[in-house]
């Protein structure tokens, strides 16, 4: 594994075992929604560090810009106005990849090495191996990955794996003005969260809690929520996220059988690849537009 810069836990569509001897620390990003001012510094720092720039959009009547995640916008702030207990609240959630312990995207991905889960918890996309099938999009319980119209490859937050690999925190974490985003070992982040939750309970938020959903094996991006009992208040954060049944079925049961059974079809695909080159569904996309 000459090119390995973080220890790999698993790779998409690759049954080959990964080295297991080393046990690096498991990291996590903690987003404390109760101290987030929605300033979008994290959005800007993310785009700056990762050399991506979304198009300049328009105002659609809310503060959300860009209005959604894209291949050029890996994190966006989602603003929700709600009246809880007779009090107006402006709940602002930084949306982006949750870096699930059990990543639906990776499970769904058919392309070897396009999605990598590192042992520290980071789930990273390797666009050079991405075939643009979009399975990761369907496989994600949080609706995070986005295909780029420019190269038809999937993109999302890398948790700044390049920074973490050299011992730095992600760009969004470093820049966060109020310390609403923190980074460290997952264990430490849970500790930080518990202190915040105690403070919120003192201030009358009886249902304050940590969002680290079990349905995806826990996440390496966690939220402190004032209303942990109602995550959907936060621009529809899923209450019980889980990998869709189709993906689980495909990967869990059918795949070993299927891979044997359809090896011939696979071989066709292989020769298609080496003789014609990779598929370019965006060309098809153009065609369908015409």
């Amino acid at each position: 594994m000459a090119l390995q810069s973080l220890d790999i836990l698993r790779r998409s569509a690759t049954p080959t075992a990964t080295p297991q001897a080393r046990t690096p620390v498991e990291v996590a990003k903690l987003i404390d929604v109760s101290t987030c001012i929605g300033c979008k510094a994290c959005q800007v720092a993310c785009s700056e560090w990762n050399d991506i720039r979304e198009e300049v959009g328009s105002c659609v009547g809310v503060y959300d810009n860009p209005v959604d995640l894209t291949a050029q916008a890996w994190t966006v702030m989602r603003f929700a106005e709600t009246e809880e207990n007779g009090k107006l609240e402006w709940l602002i959630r930084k949306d982006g990849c949750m870096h699930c312990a059990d990543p639906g995207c990776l499970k769904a991905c058919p392309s070897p090495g396009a999605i990598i889960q590192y042992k520290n918890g980071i789930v990273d996309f390797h666009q050079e191996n991405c075939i643009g099938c979009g399975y990761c999009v369907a496989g994600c319980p949080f609706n995070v990955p986005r295909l780029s119209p420019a190269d038809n490859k999937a993109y999302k937050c890398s948790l700044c794996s390049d920074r973490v690999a050299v011992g730095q925190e992600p760009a969004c974490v470093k820049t966060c003005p109020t310390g609403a985003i923190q980074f460290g070992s997952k264990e430490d982040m849970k500790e930080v969260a518990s202190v915040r939750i105690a403070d919120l309970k003192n201030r009358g938020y009886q249902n304050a809690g940590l969002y680290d959903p079990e349905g995806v094996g826990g996440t390496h991006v966690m939220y402190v929520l004032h209303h942990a009992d109602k995550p959907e208040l936060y621009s529809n954060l899923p209450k019980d996220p889980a990998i869709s049944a189709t993906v689980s079925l495909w990967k869990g049961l059918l795949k070993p059988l299927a891979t044997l059974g359809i090896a011939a079809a696979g071989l066709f695909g292989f020769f298609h690849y080496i003789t014609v080159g990779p598929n370019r569904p965006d060309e098809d996309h153009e065609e369908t537009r015409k």
Partner: protein
Amino acid sequence: MDHHHHAAAGVSVSRRQFFKISAAGMSATSLAVMGMAPSTAQAEVRQYKLSRATEVRNTCTYCSVGCGLLMYSLGDGAKNAKQEIIHIEGDPDHPVSRGSLCPKGAGLLDFVHSPGRLKYPEVREAGSDQWKRISWHEAVERIAKHMKADRDANFIDKNADGVPVNRWLSTGMLTASASSNETGILTQKFMRSLGIIATDAQARVCHGPTVAALASTFGRGAMTNSWVDIKNADFILVMGGNAAEAHPVGFKWAIEAKKQRGAKLIVVDPRFNRTAAVADQYVPIRAGSDIVFLGGIINWLIANDKIHWDYVKAYTNASLIVKEEYGFDEGLFSGFDAEKSKYDRASWNYELDANGAAKRDPSLEHPRCVWNLMKAHFARYTPELVSSLTGSPKEGFLAVCQHLGETAAPNKVGTILYALGWTQHTVGAQNIRTMAMIQLLLGNIGMPGGGVNALRGHSNIQGLSDLGLLSTSLPGYLTLPNETQHPTLADYLAKNTPKTLLDGQFNYWSNTPKFFVSLMKWFWGDKATADNNWGYDWLPKWDKLYDVLHMVELMHQGKMNGFIVQGFNPLASFPDANKVREAFSKLKYMVVIDPITTETSSFWQNHGESNPADPAKIQTEVFRLPSTCFAEEDGSIVNSSRWLQWHFKGADAPGEAKSDQEIIGELFVALRELYKKDAGKGAEPILNLSWPYRDPKNPTPEELAKEMNGRALADLFDPKDPTKQLAKKGEQLPGFALLRDDGSTMSACWIFSGCWTQAGNQMSRRDNTDVGLGNTPGWAWAWPANRRILYNRASCTPEGKPWDPSRKLIAWNGEKWAGIDVPDFKADAGPDTGMNPFIMNPEGVGRLFAVDKLADGPFPEHYEPMESPIGTNPLHPKVVSSPAVRIFKGDRERLGTHKEFPYVGTTYRLTEHFQFWTKSVRLNAIAQPEQFVEISEQLAKEKGIAQGDWVKVSSKRGFIKAKAVVTKRMKPLAINQQTVHQIGIPLHWGWEGVAKKGFLTNVLPPFVGDCNTQTPEYKSFLVNIEKA
């Protein structure tokens, strides 16, 4: 959005695609099965892009938090490598920012590389509709010729009384609050030698009222505490500002107070903003009614005995007795002259005894002692009145009272974070005064975690204020001489050197002659001698205040010909932009010095409804000169807590751009040559100006910084011990204590003395050791004398012990004052001397009664905005708005009424924006791309406006079109038994830049300012709204 749909559902791809991608997926799976995968499954993260980039330290150029930057550029400094900044992130060593940057700071890379950066000098010829590239040589020659011709024609050397006044009124200049101190001080020298007094920096449209209010109360006009110190507060009030959005990284320390101390945070604001999103409580208020709310707090504190009595009795003027002639009746203070709309302030003062000391009654029983006058004045501000005039729910108002009231205890401290929500009113200074009084009553001034914290705007607006870049100021809060008050040096010194008003006070302004003569030695060098009164006659003497509104009015009347605009965008920044455009159109020449394109420089362009100009009819010659930005220069800037921080250049500027210092240097040298060759009018101050720079066309930041600090011009000896040498001739001074009034010292800005001593540049110090309470005295350098919390003597009892042992800043140790901060006091004046903590005030105490320092009253009083939604003032219906307002005739006619324009408009900045620059910054344009206004659901329903609709917002003066953000965060208020809707109008739009083109919001506000400082009333005016 098309690709989202494509992406978001693997199911929506065409059948053909599905087949192909399925096949590919299978092929991959099968490849793995066949053991061929590993070569494609190798994985490596993206390579770290900064490994050998060059790292340079800088300071963020946007707001006054002054966050530390790390700038990374390509190349290792080799001559053959051209440096290019490739990344900017926060400096983790910086004690305030600790690595953080807000969305503006985080996007600085796109500012440095903005497509709007100017690369070479250009001119727009009279009547032309385009820019033309010219050489620097041509630009400088043509500008210098314009200036000399105008100056020769209009220079006034003597007034009617024969007083030398040396002023040039027909050309104005704006200076840049994002430029360095070194640029600022050089510009000060340049302008005053020419006689320019029609000049202002952004402070005029920003925190002018802060200086007036805080200086008149405490003695100095600056933020009292520091950013990190906010973490020491038990209670934080954010009112008249929006700290989370405007100063996100400074606000970090408010969040720390919440997290670490359990502090409570309450926001009082016309809209539920992003500060409110993280507050414990939000209280709505009608824009322009703050004095009612704050006056109500004073009344409540007195009525409920939530007063820090020991503090108030010892450290305020509560016990001082006011003249018998003083009075307040039906909305007017004594001494009002209705014809002039001005007060004669003679009665607003203390009653003096035979020795000239103020009389006092420590028992506070005298009916005319300040305490009793104050109590009577605010008794009218009942909770019911507060609720009726502000629209704030009574329980919200009382919650603020109770939380503040708790901090009257010596071991509880509260702070206030405010900004332009208080300054930009006709009663701006008085808004702040009211809060300053509250903090005195609670004993929160001088305390860690307390203070009145004015969160300044631009990165160096504090510095430009300190350097006196305002019409009637000089560096170090010295005043520019006035033609009638100060015709001679003797008059000037006599009137600006106060006598103590109570025995034993430090009265630091008694040193005025030392500061002033040292300043004159900087201006005129060897030409300033005792015989010529240190060159006093060469200074311009002012007759009137030529603030920005006055300047534009004169332009509008055709009385000004030239305008030099350095890093300022007045067309977008000044109120009544339509009037401003008309005014600029009458100029003969305009010179814009800026790193980026601005609406001001292209005011002559036609942009349809948003700028209906006809270039062919505009004869103004406009020069546009490209300047460096922060990343391309060395220098210092002053943050809000008075820290002078030095920054370093990371790369060359694009194209032919030059530093402001070089541009000013070239212009000055060209002008001086013209005056040498062809002596025009008023040549003396130009030819006698000290210009000792190694390259006269390009003075360096180091040369200028050393001049700000000052040096000995002769060997200096201790006056008490003539054998003791304090400094050798030519040495940098250690601080202002060594300044002399005999011409043996020079200093361009006395309060900065200590910034560059014999020990070197103190502003670039980087020791971030926390010596306690978050204080980092080894980081950079703070004026005055590296004191970090002003008035810190007041953190101790009169006996010299800390009020709160857990907040010990300094204490009397039997011999001197010592502790973790530099005492803001005479170090060896013990408690028994009776010296009081407010050393800049001649009475030594904080002023609840502001005596004659302000134009509109010694106590704050509520007056309605010039455009009032209720059209009356229930406190005194005969005096609705402030009687001391200055308004030009034509502008009064441009005021609207609530019948025509029923809604309250209030303008503000969004956190993604900084002034009009971030329009040119792609990363920020992405985050906030298009102009909008915020309205309540109720108003939207009434007007048939839906989320995201286009709306037209109009005032008596003009209109804008924008998208509608319909929100629960704006609510209608019940004011004086009627419903008042407020409309929130974010500010920073225009036609230049990469964001969606928008209207100049400032076509809406009225052309009228704060009574004391003329800071425009942007925060409360009347508008109408309709679906566009």
